[in-house]
């Protein structure tokens, strides 16, 4: 491991080849179940997919075609796949913007705000994370209707702007930041918001990336809540839209599979974008170095 590169908190480079080979093998094993998905998405006939499920034939395609991919995009105006995708991107973008801001502000205050009853708030946060979503969707639906937000984007965005999970996660990270950093900023006369904005956020990229990635995936794959709160195709996200291919009496496997692949692509890109923030933060090189 060269000391010039970032992100090497891990140990040495004694066995680079072994490491490379082992990670390659592990990755292959981990990813292999997904080949089934890809392969099925290339088979043209849903009956063929069904007949070949349950054996190794599910991993082999002899007559690959991209027809399914064309079909889902032009499938029919009544299941506007592209619209579902755009809807999901809208929900994702706005959930993320608010979510990162509000969760991190709250975590900052909890970690450094000398708040009375901090322990109680934290316990309450953890407690609220226990509540399964399935148990609150009905009252939540009533609340949304009363707010006039039925069948809207806002109903899918607002409730996820703050979550005990991410407040707790960011709290754990913020509270590890060395005290001197905070004190120095206070001495410089910075306001709490300035300390948060100018000092803490910039050195918390890995933690923020984590929240972005996890919140992003959670939002993208939400099912029960958007199912209940959306009615028309107006704000319906891809996760609910795709369930239409899993029909009543017969499942449109070819379309369901290719649609699932398409659904994964944007989140993968999104993850790869944010994982670049996983770099050793200023704490290591700047403060103590």
């Amino acid at each position, binding site marked *: 491991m060269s000391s010039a590169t970032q992100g090497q908190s891990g140990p040495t480079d004694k066995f680079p080849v072994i490491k490379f080979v082992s990670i390659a093998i592990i990755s292959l094993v*981990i990813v292999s179940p997904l080949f089934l*998905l890809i392969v099925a998405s290339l088979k043209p006939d849903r009956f063929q997919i069904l007949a070949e499920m349950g054996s190794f034939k599910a991993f082999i395609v002899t007559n690959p075609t991209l027809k399914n991919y064309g079909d889902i995009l032009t499938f029919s105006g009544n299941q506007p796949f592209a619209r579902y995708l755009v809807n999901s991107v809208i929900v994702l973008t706005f959930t993320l913007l608010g979510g990162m801001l509000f969760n991190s502000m709250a975590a900052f205050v909890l970690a450094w705000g000398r708040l009375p009853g901090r322990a109680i708030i934290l316990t309450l946060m953890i407690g609220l994370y226990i509540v399964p979503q*399935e148990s609150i969707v009905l009252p939540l639906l009533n609340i949304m209707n009363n707010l006039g937000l039925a069948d809207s984007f806002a109903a899918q965005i607002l409730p996820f702007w703050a979550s005990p999970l991410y407040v707790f996660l960011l709290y*754990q990270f913020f*509270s590890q930041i060395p005290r001197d950093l905070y004190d120095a900023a206070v001495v410089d006369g910075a306001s709490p918001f300035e300390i948060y904005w100018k000092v803490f956020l910039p050195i918390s990229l*890995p933690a923020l990336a984590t929240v972005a990635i996890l919140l992003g995936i959670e939002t993208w794959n939400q099912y029960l809540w958007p199912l209940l709160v959306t009615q028309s195709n107006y704000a319906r996200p891809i996760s609910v839209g795709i369930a239409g291919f899993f029909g009543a009496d017969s499942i449109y496997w070819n379309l369901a599979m290719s649609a699932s692949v398409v659904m994964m692509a944007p989140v993968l890109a999104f993850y790869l974008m944010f*994982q670049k923030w996983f770099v050793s933060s200023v*704490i290591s090189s700047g403060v103590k170095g």
Partner: protein
Amino acid sequence: MLLPACIIISAFLLVPFVMSFPISLTNQRLIPRPYRFVGLDNYVQVLTDPVFWQALWNVTRFTAMVVPVQCGFALAMALLINQKIPGRNFFRGALFLPAITSMTVVCVIWGTLFQFPTGPLNQIVGFLTLGMAGPIDWLGDPRSSMPAIVLLSAWQAYGFQMVVYLAGLQNIPADLYEAARLDGASTWQRFRFVTLPGLRQTNIFVLIITTIQAFKLFTQINILTQGGPRDSTNTVVQYMYTVGFVGQKLGLASAVAIILFVIVLLISLVQRYVLRDRK
């Protein structure tokens, strides 16, 4: 600055949850119509139902299996892909793929892999044991159903913990490793005395959160086994969902939610106490 988060969490999480308490004291149905106060009847009914206790035992078993497997594997993978190796971004992406796959698709895939008796997993088992181990009815045999769910769940979700660990690793000052190296510490010693202590906060977070997530096990159960065979994979949330959405007994389902909340809260408090800073 705390206010926006507090308002949102209160309005969209705390209030709906608190609302379920009065409901749990009534015989309210999913489809609204006159209902009456029934006191603690719902709680008595839940707590005297052997299926509820079976479900609670199942999630406890699930948690005990999945937490170490999933967190351990996630940490190992985080350590691996935190290193400078060729194609690092590629591996980071590949190892994260299961985590971005929606649970419906995961269940389709694993339902096929687990298929009895000729599914791919059984063929691999047969091949590795030279046909000595007969095909296993992974999801259909009460003895293997929960371990099979553990395998599927850990595969799908370890990416979550991996990312958290990855972020945690960035917070360990590089100079500590440098110092350890100068002291002639072995790889293991560096892991034991630099990495692990450096991940303390991360570990607390990961353990508490993974435990809570495990206790809420639901989606994959609802899609794949609906709690069967013979309640061997029934979980508390599946039980609640069935009672509420299928049986339409909202009052009873609310009581299950409250009971689950109390149990998991107690566990989390114990965990926090055990993992507390002893400084």
